[in-house]
């Protein structure tokens, strides 16, 4: 049943993609759907493209793992479109440039800057694309029992072929369809599960019991090597072999299944996960991030800044606004998107709370990304559970596909359009080649944490393209040299800090500021961009180029 749902979804995606082939003639057609998309359709496409695995599965999983503070992630994701609306959509559309690198060249008149922007596009797209494909593989492994590599290859192929056949014109319809589908498949099961849950489970959702003892015999399928600290001697079946473990530290290996008996105390997490709040505990219930050992307000702000500012810098989203016919259409698109995303994210908390009550053991195994699809089986059984799981899997798969399509388009656009001479045939081949290159990367990175990788893409985008766009669109004084210096600073500080944070795994606020650097790397990039520009010579045509972006559209 689940396999059938996914196959049907793939077929529909490819068919809608193929529908776009007939009318496609030029590179511009391929990239921006000939710029004739109404705000409503375009907003649905933006939302469809934007709602990725991180939104469909990741946030609910994060609620189990990091506490109710994780509910700030979708708030930031949505607020990103308020910034897009207020600062970017209309003037960016009026530049007439097809991509962010194209904007950099048109506004600042530097071809080397364009190439550097294309490199940044590739960095962001890869950071975002690989975890999508990884998640698709993991999801298929979980629900249908196929090997991980099958899921990865199938999803990579579907995305690459759809894009090569239809390009973005197809993608506009695909994405709009995907948004309707995702909203339906997210909200529908949420409401249905709430109805099925019964009064006792609903009461537990409102106050999840602290996860201190296993309430039933619980298999924990460890996704990663995990340090555990047992608080009492426990008889654990490790891969079916009964083992008496003493108090203190033990290491569970990746892919081991530890089965804890009912009533056994829950071990504490050790190592760099020691700071995660216990599901249902006091730290978990306080709706702030980093309640374990950091400064919660700063940790929450950092995620908000990264997600809200990073949205405008995501190359696959910005290009979408060029499918509106004019600046006004682009602005309306952004405004409608805020409402559409809000409607979707309202249901996140249902899955987060259900997951915390029913599958708290995922907090130990780090398998929280797949919590949503396991929930129906915990609430009901038989055909109803199988149907709900199939629907949720199809929705999650739609999320992977939609986002991956947009990312692959931005990636192949940057490679074929900005880094190489343009041409339709080449762009199609690049789409196929890029998806073929991402699949092996996804096969290698099976252990990556999808939410962390996705947030890092937002952080890099916020530290590079956000200052470029805001200053480029509103300040005549920005120069190519300033933009270059600011983006290099932003890229190096954000990517460098995150790499350092992952390597050192420091505890406390310092570690948080390294792992989640947006709070300081974005202002730093802005500052460098402004200071270097002030010391530079502004070309006489700069003001004119900037000003005409703010004149009302006319035919």
């Amino acid at each position, binding site marked *: 049943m689940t396999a059938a749902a996914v196959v049907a979804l793939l077929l529909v995606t490819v068919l809608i993609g193929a529908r776009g082939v007939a*009318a496609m003639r030029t590179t511009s057609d391929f990239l921006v759907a*000939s710029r004739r998309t109404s705000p409503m359709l375009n907003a649905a496409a933006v939302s469809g493209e934007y709602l990725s695995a991180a939104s469909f599965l990741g946030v609910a999983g994060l609620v189990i793992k990091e506490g109710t503070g994780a509910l700030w992630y979708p708030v930031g994701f949505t607020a990103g479109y308020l910034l897009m609306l207020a600062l970017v959509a209309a003037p960016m559309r009026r530049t007439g440039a097809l991509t962010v690198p194209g904007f950099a060249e048109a506004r600042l008149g530097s071809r080397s800057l364009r190439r550097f922007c294309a490199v940044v596009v590739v960095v962001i797209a890869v950071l975002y694309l690989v975890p999508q494909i990884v998640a698709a593989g993991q999801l298929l492994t979980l629900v249908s029992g196929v090997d991980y590599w099958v899921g990865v290859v199938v999803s990579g192929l579907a995305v690459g072929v759809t894009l090569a056949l239809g390009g973005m014109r197809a993608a506009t319809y695909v994405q709009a369809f995907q948004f309707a589908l995702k909203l339906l498949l997210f909200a529908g099961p949420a409401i249905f599960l709430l109805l099925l849950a019964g009064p006792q489970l609903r009461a537990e959702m409102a106050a999840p019991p602290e996860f201190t003892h296993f309430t039933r015999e619980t298999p924990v399928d460890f996704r990663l090597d995990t340090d555990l600290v047992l608080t009492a001697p426990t008889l654990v079946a490790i891969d079916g072999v009964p083992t008496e473990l003493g108090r203190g530290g033990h290491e569970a290996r990746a892919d081991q299944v530890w089965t804890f008996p009912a009533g056994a105390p829950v071990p504490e997490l050790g190592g760099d996960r020691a700071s995660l709040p216990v599901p249902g505990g006091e730290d978990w219930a306080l709706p702030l991030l980093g309640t374990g050992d950091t400064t919660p307000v700063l940790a929450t702000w950092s995620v908000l800044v990264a997600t809200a500012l990073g949205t405008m810098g995501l190359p696959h989203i910005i290009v979408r606004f060029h499918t509106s016919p004019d600046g006004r259409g682009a602005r309306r698109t952004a405004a409608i998107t805020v409402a559409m995303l*809000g409607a979707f994210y309202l249901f996140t908390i249902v899955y987060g709370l259900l997951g915390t009550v029913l599958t708290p053991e995922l907090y130990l195994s780090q398998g929280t990304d797949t919590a949503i699809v396991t929930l129906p089986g915990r609430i009901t059984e038989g055909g109803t559970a199988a149907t709900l799981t199939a629907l949720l899997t199809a929705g999650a798969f739609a999320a992977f596909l939609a986002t991956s399509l947009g990312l692959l388009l931005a990636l192949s656009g940057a490679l074929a359009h*900005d880094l190489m001479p343009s041409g339709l045939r080449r762009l199609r081949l690049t789409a196929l080649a890029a998806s073929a290159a991402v699949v092996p990367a996804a096969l290698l990175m099976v252990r990556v944490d999808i939410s962390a990788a996705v947030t890092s893409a937002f952080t890099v985008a916020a530290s590079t393209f956000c200052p470029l766009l805001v200053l480029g669109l509103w300040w005549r004084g920005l120069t190519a040299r300033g933009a270059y210096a600011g983006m290099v600073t932003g890229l190096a500080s954000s990517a460098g800090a995150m790499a350092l944070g992952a390597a050192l795994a420091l505890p406390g606020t310092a570690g948080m500021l390294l792992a989640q650097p947006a709070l300081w790397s974005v202002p730093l990039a802005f500052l460098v961009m402004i200071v270097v520009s002030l010391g530079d010579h502004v070309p006489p*045509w700069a003001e*004119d180029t900037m000003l*005409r972006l703010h004149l009302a559209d006319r035919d």
Partner: protein
Amino acid sequence: MNRPRRVAVSAPPGSGPRARPLPARPTPDTLLEPGRAAQARAVRRAQLRRAGWTLACGAVLLLGVPVLFWLAPGLTLTRALGLPVGWMVVAFAPYPLLALLAWWHLRAAERLERPDGPGGTENGTDHR
């Protein structure tokens, strides 16, 4: 929702780096005439001020609430309708507020672009 007729639009001849060696800087005959430039300056300033208000409201909303939670953690765990107030403030409240803010900004931004907006309209273009 009526969609405009689809028109095939091709990329400007050679938008690739090799095909167009010179950057797209305006030549003198495409420069804005002084009247339009003054109008553009006025519109830009008004839009920027409007964006500033919208984003200030958004920032107070989003960055202020975590501070409130941190100062009064007990308050967030007080229950209303069975759920802790803090959860509802994060999970439900931001979305309608953001949508309202977006709608408010959209209307204001479009009003600023009307002919009777800032900078007036010396050339009387009707853009509706």
